[in-house]
């Protein structure tokens, strides 16, 4: 330990490497990857907070860290774990200050606020200090605060983290609504795969600072949902169970769990015909991978 104090070893770690992508106007893009993959770093570069050592980034014709003041007028940022509003004062006061910061004309401010009030149902919260609000209420106010100036691009860093089911759904609906209403381009990072499934047209999968996949989420889902798990209940005890094209994962007297082998194309009728020739089946249930499992598999495949 003492040695470490006197001669520290420094190692350069590349937080991001060869990360290259483009996003169209009006898209909702999910930026996903395990913890420490470089998601927040990318968001911070795209929002002008960090200057990358090399590489370039052009958003709406501007380089974020070069034209910071002009650029940030058109973006909104919500960090799920960090508040953008003032802690001790009523939310409305924060909004008023944001109005001054972004020089929003009074008419437009009123109109936007009314719209946000309706969509997020936050009218009653505005008079209360932020510190008195629950996590979900806070997130709703954060979202409203980041949209008062009607940004063209909205960055959401884990917007649903820690929220209860009802609020999560409300936040998702709201994100969709804003995307439709103002055709705001939305880039969100999340660990909640249901967010991705419900919201995004496109995902960018990042790991160890590199892009591993970009494209539609459906593609990935199709690829992995081919794998089925079948739980079978037999009419009597069998000593041994085996079936061509399937792997027996578990077998316990009258119950067995089968998995499709990589080349097997699952078809229910074929499966019923095939299995009933060998065994007497009472019941069976087919399931495919959940979205979370798919992602875990993906991470595994790329050794993240």
């Amino acid at each position, binding site marked *: 330990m003492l040695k470490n104090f006197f001669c520290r070893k420094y190692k350069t770690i590349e937080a991001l490497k060869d990360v290259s992508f483009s996003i169209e106007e009006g898209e909702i893009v999910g930026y996903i990857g395990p913890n420490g993959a470089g998601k927040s770093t990318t968001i911070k570069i795209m*929002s002008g*907070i*960090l*200057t990358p050592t090399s590489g370039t980034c052009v958003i709406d014709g501007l380089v974020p860290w070069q034209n910071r003041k002009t650029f940030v*007028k058109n973006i909104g940022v919500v*960090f799920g774990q*960090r508040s953008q509003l003032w802690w*001790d*004062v009523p939310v409305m006061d924060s909004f008023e200050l944001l109005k001054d910061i972004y020089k929003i004309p009074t008419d437009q401010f009123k109109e936007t606020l009314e719209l946000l009030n309706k969509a997020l149902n936050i009218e009653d919260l505005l008079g209360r200090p932020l510190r008195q609000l629950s996590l979900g209420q806070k997130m709703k106010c954060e979202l409203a605060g980041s949209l008062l100036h009607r940004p063209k691009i909205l960055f959401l860093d884990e917007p649903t983290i820690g929220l209860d089911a009802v609020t999560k759904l409300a936040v998702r609906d709201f994100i969709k609504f804003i995307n439709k209403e103002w055709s705001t381009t939305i880039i969100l990072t999340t660990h909640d795969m249901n967010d991705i499934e419900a919201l995004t047209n496109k995902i960018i999968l990042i790991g160890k600072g590199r892009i591993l996949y970009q494209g539609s989420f459906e593609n990935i889902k199709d690829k992995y949902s081919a794998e089925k798990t079948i739980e079978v209940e037999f009419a009597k005890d069998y000593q041994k169970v085996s079936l061509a094209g399937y792997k027996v994962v578990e077998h316990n007297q009258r119950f067995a769990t089968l998995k499709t082998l990589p080349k097997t194309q699952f078809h229910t009728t074929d499966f019923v015909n095939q299995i009933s020739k060998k065994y007497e089946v009472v019941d069976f249930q087919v399931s495919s991978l959940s979205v979370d499992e798919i992602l875990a598999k993906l991470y595994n495949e790329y050794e993240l």
Partner: protein
Amino acid sequence: MLYKNYIKMHMKSSFQYRFNMMFVAFNQLLIMVGEILSVYLLFLQFESVAGWTFYESLLMLGVIYTVYSFVEAFARGYDEFPKLVQSGELDRFMIRPVNIHYQIFGSRFEFTKFPRIILGIVVSVIALVNMSVDWNVWKVLVLIATYICGSFVIFGLFLLSAGISIYTVENLEFLNIVTNGSKELAFYPINIYAKWFTRIFTFVIPIACFNYLPLSFIMETGSVPMWLCGVSPLLGMLFVLPCLLFFNLSLRHYKSTGT
């Protein structure tokens, strides 16, 4: 104006902790009174120190109190810059279409420093009334420039320590020595210290420019040419420029903290 609204915001939030504020302000006043007493006790022992009388020395105390508390009250954001970094507030500033310095100024107001500013002015006035000076326009101008220069130099020191903290992320104790240490030096006319020491605080950190140099001009004493003593506060103000440059360059190296 945005700045006015920032102040309003801070008033609203800090007045929620009224009792705490009053306590802090009172506590700080007590410390100041103690410091004034210690200068007084020193001069009870020695009639003059390095040729300066009690009231001349007291003026230095008045000047440093006024300017230091003034800078602390309005530029507290730079003083607490490591906190801005750690809490992610700096990230928030970066995504607003407003100048970063404007936002740092707007991020903190220490209302509890106001009594100290007032006491600083009171001490200055008591000292000035009791000094025997042949006043003229130039002397008044130099006196005013002294306060402005002091504010600039102290602000420069705040900028320096804030800039360094970007690299170190934590608040290092040695940065306190730079700011607080400089303050305590300036309690006395600094030419009472060793010569090399006085030189450092004349040419490197120009504390002398709002300390014994303008005092020499007002009292018409000392070995430094009078014209030089007269313009010294103006020269001292320039100190803030390299500090500002350093801070701005450091900001480019800013690596935000993780979420």
